[in-house]
């Protein structure tokens, strides 16, 4: 269980996190979404006691992280891509972390196996690719068999096979009753992995809840309707107060109405319908709609970054 109440963190005059309140429950994967600079990493750093909050509380299992007597057995964290000494081997890195909690050596070998680093565990972490570094970070997070996992951009640098692996790993960990909190800038990835999402922008909460609800709440319902008399249908829909526009020679797109309402109007007007399809927004579109206001303040530099492919846009 992760819980923040009115969490606020400032760096100088910049407010990175502003009165953030949310809860992350066990048993499901919860995605943590927001544009670059929206305060995701700051929130995670405060949750882990690396940064001190200016106001509000950040609790894990009801306690501030820094008061946990055995933190690795309660919380596993993957911070930025690298929080590993480049001169030390993966196995020694894990052994050093394990020693702080008297976690036995066999557990170190076990997590190395889980993340698939057996063949390179004796090599210095500095020689690792980004993907291998991520796997080592995930091994560190799993070391203490914690009930809560905080993972910042875990799919960064992973190949398609690695992404599939982590998707299943996260779902499996959640199914075991763990709290799994994952930040990502890849909305499509979160749509596949997360059951719940928390969306923030400029340090403030924008939306929270089950993925489908968040999508529905964010984007207006749109229905595509094709008919043999689109002009009459368009007039009738407009007269009924719906926002409708003609697209293509026989199609009309209706905003703010569900398919039932559109079907009834068509029946009343005795217009033959060829197709009646509710248009479902993707999480990505919903995210764009929700965070538009939040990113506007960042001006062109953000728009420029956003236009690029995911490889260029992540931090």
């Amino acid at each position: 269980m992760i819980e923040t109440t009115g969490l606020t963190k400032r760096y100088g005059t910049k407010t990175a996190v502003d009165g953030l309140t949310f809860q992350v429950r066990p048993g499901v994967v919860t995605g943590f979404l927001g544009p670059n600079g929206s305060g995701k990493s700051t929130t995670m750093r405060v949750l882990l006691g690396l940064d001190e909050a200016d106001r509000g509380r950040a609790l894990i299992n009801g306690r501030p992280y820094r008061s946990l007597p055995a933190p690795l057995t309660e919380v596993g964290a993957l911070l930025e891509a690298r929080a590993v000494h480049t001169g030390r081997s993966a196995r020694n890195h894990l052994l050093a972390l394990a020693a702080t909690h008297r976690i036995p050596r066999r557990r170190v070998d076990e997590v190395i196996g889980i993340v698939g680093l057996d063949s390179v565990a004796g090599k210095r972490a500095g020689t690792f690719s980004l993907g291998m570094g991520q796997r080592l970070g995930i091994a560190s997070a799993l070391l203490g068999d914690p009930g809560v996992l905080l993972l910042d951009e875990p799919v960064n640098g992973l190949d398609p096979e690695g992404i599939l692996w982590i998707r299943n790993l996260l779902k499996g960990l959640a199914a075991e009753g763990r709290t799994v909190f994952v930040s990502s800038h890849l909305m499509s990835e979160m749509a596949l992995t997360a059951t719940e999402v928390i969306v923030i922008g400029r340090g403030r909460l924008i939306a929270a809840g089950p993925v489908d609800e968040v999508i529905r709440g964010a984007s207006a319902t749109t229905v595509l309707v094709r008919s043999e008399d689109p002009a009459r249908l368009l007039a009738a829909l407009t007269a009924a107060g719906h926002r409708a526009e003609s697209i293509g020679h026989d199609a009309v797109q209706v905003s703010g109405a569900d398919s039932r309402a559109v079907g009834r109007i068509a029946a009343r007007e005795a217009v033959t319908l060829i197709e009646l399809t509710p248009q479902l927004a993707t999480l990505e579109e919903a995210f764009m709609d929700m965070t538009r206001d939040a990113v506007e303040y960042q001006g062109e530099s953000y728009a420029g970054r956003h236009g690029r492919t995911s490889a260029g846009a992540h931090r």
Partner: protein
Amino acid sequence: MTSVGATPAAPSAARRSMFAGRHVTLPSVLASEWIKLRSLRSTFFGLLGAVVIIFAITPFDTRQGAAGLDGMYAAQVAIGMLGILIVTGEYTTGMIRSSFTAVPARAPVLVAKAAVFATVVFVVSLATAFVAFVFGAAARANRAHASLQTPGAQRAILAGAVYLTLLGLLAVGLGFLIRSTAGAIATLFCILYALPILALSLHYPNSVTLGRYLPFNALTQAITTNATLDGDYFGPWKGLVVTGVWALVALVGGLVTVLRRNA
């Protein structure tokens, strides 16, 4: 779209780790820091450098009453840089975030790192000083220089090792205080060499008034036999106390920094 296979567990049922209750303690952090220290190649090379320097200088240390430990003037650089690197290396690589998430109280990390490093430096430098003295004394026997029976000779071996240990602690403290490798090394060089040069440029007795409080002169007094002690400066043990105060100030400053600043 959302997962179908995963059945959410009852939210109230808190999952218990198979390692629950294994609290972080100072001994467990000491064990961790020992693994960290011995698993880096820089540790081996740094210590080897110090040992080689001490052995290499011994045969040329032929002054009357010399203990053959003048190599420590250069070896202290190797020890100091190593002490800095074991700390700043964690900051530059991001390892410090792993260290502080495992040990969120933070102070045990500093204490354990300092303790483990100090122990290793003391053992290595005591053994090196002893061997260097004995072999050096044998090599220089025909010139009637110091032997183990010479007054102050055994003290020089012990005090030299204590000096290098305290210097290592000063370096660890500077690492936590400054965090940047270059900045910490520059500061260490100022303390070790720039300040003594500044002191020498002053007129007597001001040169001595400042000089007595510098680690460099504490080393000079520590590794010399009684016959060649300089009465203007503090005696060997008092000089080591002064060096210890330098180390303590750096460590306390480092501790305050670690506890107050964001990691």
